[in-house]
């Protein structure tokens, strides 16, 4: 029942969707009943909707049923109907299921999260698949599978969520986002598994493949690329191909492995390294003894100190990955078989490799890790492997190179590339062997090796089988054995095959003594170096030969007839052929080189013919041609009068255009009359002049029109033009202090100007303030003066000071004066607040106005009298010292004023003098003592100066700030 229920639940929504033809993709039956229910309600108010929404969480369906029965009556018959519908659409089962799951997964959460913008990974999938049922079904299917195989894909599990709870669902899907990548893989796997089941969903699979294309594309390309090349170039084997593909070839082996499983590749590489290690030994020895030793004493090698660990680890890895290896091995040959063709490397490539590697190897010594093997260390998983890789790289790279060289040396035609790619799989080698089987020379050369190696292989095989630990090896061997028969029948079971097999069986060999290996490596290194040197020498020789040949081609001997030329061509061809062998070193046999050479020769011949044709149309009329050549040579350096002069130059140019072809030799007949040319030139010049003039006129006209146009719109343009000019000037302006003109750009003048302005303003302000303030105070002071003159001074003084003074006075207890002060303050707060000087000015100004005539009389006394009067008054009145200070301040101010403006001084002085007369006699000693106590004259001046400076600076600062503020305001408004 549960199963049926589940099915029902799963299919129910499908049936609904199918039946109702709901086009909306989002209506996926969500895992959460509520949201789904809402969705369904939106579409159709049918009861089914609610059911499905709740049912989807499989087991809860019944309970929900019971609970829902009250709200919506659910008919079991209809329920069964739905199921039947699903059954009818049995082929669509998967789709339906997928839809269900899809809806569950994507439905609620996707929509809601889409709106929130939380669900990026899923959404792209939907639009891509165009919401087709197949797509949905596919996705759903995959998820379904995931659910089933939840054990496998733990990561994906949250995504399967067909039965997930609402609470966990969101979180799970969030995770799912990040797992989206992994989902694809899982999907792929699932698809593969289900591929058989899904026969009807071809389109679905295609889509899945398409999706994979992006991810897998690289692998696909890697795999497919080599195949295609192989097919194309099996016979050709051109250098270019190899050059292009050569470098990738090394990574190739590892690349394909990476996508599937890196471990495999790593093991592979390890194996390869091992094989390389051993292969070199085999190569070095190139004889049975070494190999036999290795084979015979596999166990003995185990104890070896250094490599024991490596080999051990390798073996261990192999053991671990045996299962994987077995599977991977199948894949690898398939992968590499195509690439094997690519690995056929021409001798030229090998040479390049050798040249490139040699310096590096020499520089780095034995430890060098050649570039192609760079990737290998990456693949090494365990430190042991890394170690092994490092150790193995040296030997392997060296060995590879050595192999190459050996083969090159052994067989100049060396068609087999097996060397470089010791890591290459057997299949490759076999193929090569097959191909190379055609090349007899190499075979013959290698025969001894092959014999020995073949025997060794068999032995190794047996040994590997004997060793239980190296199961992978045995498996491989078996596989090889299975595959071997094909190449084996070939009469010449080349050394390559043996080597390959040796490599395959390397693990057992690894057991070989590391010491021996080291020695072998050293030897191999030495040989390799020697071989490299030889190679280089050979290459240099070849280059020389080629250069010589080319030089001959370029400058054929003048005396040589065409026959001789042909002969030289032949020689060149031969040389080229010889050179080509080493240079191109095609994997193919000499025939190929010969054919190439022949083709080249043909080309050369044709070229030669082409060259010879003009001078000698008849190829085989040797004598005539020779004579002609001689004649040509003789007349080659004659001075030709027709080429002199202007016309001659022209003729010369013409002649040069035709080349040295005799048929088109320019004689004096072709000389044109200078006059005509001159005329032509003249006419041309005239034309050009006319054109220029016309252009000039046009330009002028244009300018005039422009003027008119701009003139009409000058109102607007004039401003812009002015701006433009300014801009140009600014851009071109560079201040040069040496130039007097640039003095205008100096800022000093501006500063002075500012200062002067500031002073002027000060003066103005003072001038302005005096009368203004005086008016205000005039009235008040007049009253005060009349009422109380003496206290007035105190009050005025204190009033001029700040209120702090008043407070202090209060503390001291001068009640009456305070009142006066307060009254005074209240009377003229504005003036007082403005400036103390202003107040005084006003105060005295009034009097000055009144007693302007007396100014001259009191000048002599002016300084002393006021001071005395001010100071003495507080003293004798027992006023506080503060008042005295105030008085001092007043005095200072007075002095300032007096100095700044003489007129003001006079007035001020007059005013104090008057009170003196009122209260003191002119000879009062108090008046004389007072100033002594406060003889700060010089200090006062200094203070005043300082104050002035301060005021000026303060004002400047204030103005600056004000300007800045204005600018900011402006800019802010603009922007």
């Amino acid at each position: 029942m549960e199963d049926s229920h589940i099915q029902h639940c799963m299919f129910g929504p499908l049936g609904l969707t199918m039946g109702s033809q709901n086009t909306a993709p989002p209506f996926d039956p969500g895992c959460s009943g509520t949201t789904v229910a809402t969705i369904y309600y939106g579409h159709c108010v049918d009861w089914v909707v609610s059911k499905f929404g709740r049912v989807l969480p499989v087991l809860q369906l019944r309970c929900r049923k019971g609970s829902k029965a009250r709200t919506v009556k659910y008919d079991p018959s209809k329920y069964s109907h739905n199921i039947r519908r699903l059954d009818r659409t049995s082929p669509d089962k998967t789709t339906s299921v997928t839809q269900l799951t899809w809806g569950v997964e994507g439905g609620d959460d996707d929509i809601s999260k889409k709106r929130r913008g939380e669900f990026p990974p899923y959404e792209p999938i939907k639009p891509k698949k165009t919401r087709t049922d197949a797509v949905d079904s596919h996705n759903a299917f995959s998820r379904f599978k995931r659910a089933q195989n939840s054990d496998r894909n733990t990561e994906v599990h949250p995504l399967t969520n067909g039965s997930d709870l609402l609470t966990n669902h969101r979180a799970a899907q969030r995770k799912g986002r990040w797992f989206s990548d992994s989902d694809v893989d899982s999907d792929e796997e699932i698809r593969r598994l289900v591929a058989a089941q899904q026969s009807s969903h071809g389109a679905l699979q295609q889509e899945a493949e398409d999706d994979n294309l992006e991810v897998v594309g690289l692998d696909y390309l890697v795999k497919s690329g080599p195949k295609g090349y192989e097919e194309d170039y099996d016979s050709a084997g051109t250098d270019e191909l190899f050059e292009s593909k050569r470098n990738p070839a090394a990574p190739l082996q590892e690349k394909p492995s990476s996508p599937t499983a890196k471990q495999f590749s790593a093991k592979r590489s390890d194996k390869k390294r091992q094989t390389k290690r051993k292969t070199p030994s085999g190569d070095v020895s190139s004889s049975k003894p070494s190999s036999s030793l290795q084979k015979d004493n596999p166990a003995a090698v185990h104890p070896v100190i250094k490599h024991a660990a490596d080999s051990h680890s390798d073996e261990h890895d192999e053991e671990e990955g045996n299962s994987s290896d077995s599977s991977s091995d199948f894949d690898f040959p398939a992968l590499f078989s195509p690439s094997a063709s690519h690995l056929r490397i021409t001798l030229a490539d090998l040479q390049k490799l050798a040249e490139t590697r040699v310096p590096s190897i020499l520089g780095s010594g034995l430890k060098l890790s050649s570039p192609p093997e760079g990737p290998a260390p990456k693949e090494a998983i365990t430190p042991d492997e890394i170690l092994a890789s490092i150790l193995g790289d040296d030997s392997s790279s060296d060995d590879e190179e050595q192999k190459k060289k050996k083969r090159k040396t052994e067989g100049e035609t060396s068609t087999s590339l097996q060397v470089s790619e010791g890591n290459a799989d057997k299949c490759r080698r076999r193929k090569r062997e097959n191909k190379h089987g055609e090349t007899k020379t190499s075979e013959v050369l290698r025969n001894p090796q092959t014999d020995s190696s073949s025997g060794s292989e068999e032995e190794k095989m047996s040994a590997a089988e004997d060793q239980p630990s190296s199961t992978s090896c045995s498996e491989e061997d078996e596989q090889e054995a299975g595959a071997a028969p094909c190449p084996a029948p070939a009469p010449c079971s080349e050394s390559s095959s043996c080597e390959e097999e040796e490599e395959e069986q390397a693990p057992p060999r690894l057991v070989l003594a590391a010491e021996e290996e080291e020695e072998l490596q050293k030897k191999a290194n030495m040989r390799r170096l020697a071989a490299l040197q030889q190679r280089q020498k050979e290459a240099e020789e070849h280059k020389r030969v080629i250069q010589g040949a080319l030089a001959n081609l370029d400058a054929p001997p003048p005396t040589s007839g065409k026959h001789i030329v042909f002969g030289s061509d032949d020689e060149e061809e031969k040389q080229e052929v010889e050179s080509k062998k080493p240079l191109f070193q095609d994997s193919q046999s000499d025939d190929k080189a010969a054919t190439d050479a022949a083709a080249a020769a043909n080309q050369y011949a044709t070229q030669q013919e082409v060259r010879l044709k003009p001078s000698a149309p008849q190829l085989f009329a040797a004598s005539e041609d020779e004579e002609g050549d001689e004649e040509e040579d003789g007349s080659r350096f004659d001075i030709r009068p027709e080429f002199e002069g202007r016309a001659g130059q022209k003729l010369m140019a013409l002649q040069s255009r035709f080349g040295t072809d005799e048929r088109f030799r320019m004689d004096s007949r072709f000389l044109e009359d200078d006059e005509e040319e001159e005329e032509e030139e003249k006419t041309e010049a005239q034309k050009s002049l006319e054109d220029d003039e016309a252009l000039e006129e046009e330009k002028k006209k244009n300018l005039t029109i422009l003027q008119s146009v701009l003139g009409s719109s000058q109102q607007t343009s004039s401003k812009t033009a002015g701006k433009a000019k300014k801009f140009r000037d600014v851009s071109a302006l560079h201040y040069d202090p040496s130039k007097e003109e640039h003095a205008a750009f100096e800022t000093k003048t501006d500063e002075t100007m500012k200062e002067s302005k500031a002073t002027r303003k000060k003066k103005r302000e003072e001038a302005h303030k005096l009368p203004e303030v005086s008016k205000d105070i005039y009235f008040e002071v007049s009253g005060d003066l009349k009422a109380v003159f003496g206290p007035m001074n105190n009050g005025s003084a204190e009033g001029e000071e700040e209120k702090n003074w008043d407070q202090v006075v209060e503390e001291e207890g001068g009640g009456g004066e305070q009142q006066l002060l307060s009254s005074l303050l209240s009377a003229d707060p504005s003036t007082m607040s403005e400036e103390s000087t202003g107040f005084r000015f006003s105060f005295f100004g009034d009097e000055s106005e009144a007693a302007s005539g007396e100014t001259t009389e009191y000048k002599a006394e002016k300084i002393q009298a006021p001071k005395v009067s001010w100071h003495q008054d507080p003293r004798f009145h027992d006023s506080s010292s503060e008042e005295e200070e105030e008085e001092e301040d007043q005095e200072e101010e007075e002095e300032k004023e007096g100095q700044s403006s003489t007129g003001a001084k006079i007035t001020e002085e007059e005013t104090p003098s008057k009170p003196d007369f009122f209260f003191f006699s002119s000879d009062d000693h108090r008046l004389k003592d007072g100033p002594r106590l406060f003889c700060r004259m010089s200090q006062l001046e200094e203070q005043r100066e300082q104050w002035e400076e301060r005021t000026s600076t303060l004002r400047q600062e204030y103005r600056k700030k004000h300007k800045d503020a204005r600018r900011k305001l402006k800019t802010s408004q603009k922007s």
Partner: protein
Amino acid sequence: MRPLTDEETKIMFEKLSKYIGENIKLLVDRPDGTYCFRLHQDRVFYMSEKILKLATNFSRDKLISVGTCFGKFSKTKKFRLHITALDFLAPYAKFKVWVRPGAEQSFLYGNHVLKSGLGRITENTMQYQGVVVYSMADVPLGFGVAAKSTQECRRVDPMSIVVFHQADVGEFIRNEDTLT
């Protein structure tokens, strides 16, 4: 291909002056050689003297384009600037408008520039003043006509048009067949 008549020159200069003002002088009187305007199939081409001479070797009906096409005269003898003139307008533009990155695409699809897409504008731009439209990275995108003065641009609501579209770089693709 013939030189422009006075009237044509005037019309064209008037149009050009809306965008580059007096800087037309720089186009007419260039220090690096003589350049001239030529009318060919109602289109005005701006080319150097050298190219002009080379172009005279071709028959009129075979000649499609010479130098840089500045625009074309309509049948009513009005001059219409083409986007191809942008290369010569942009460096000399008097009034510029910078378009926000979000509005670039819209403008490049031939839409007007809205206030919301207005990143910057030259001050004192008058209404109906020709402006060159730049991206915020100072890449010239085209040109248009200011629909509002700078002051007005500050007040208007964000969806109001600020610059009328006249030509944009997108025309290189959209009008590929007609542009010369």
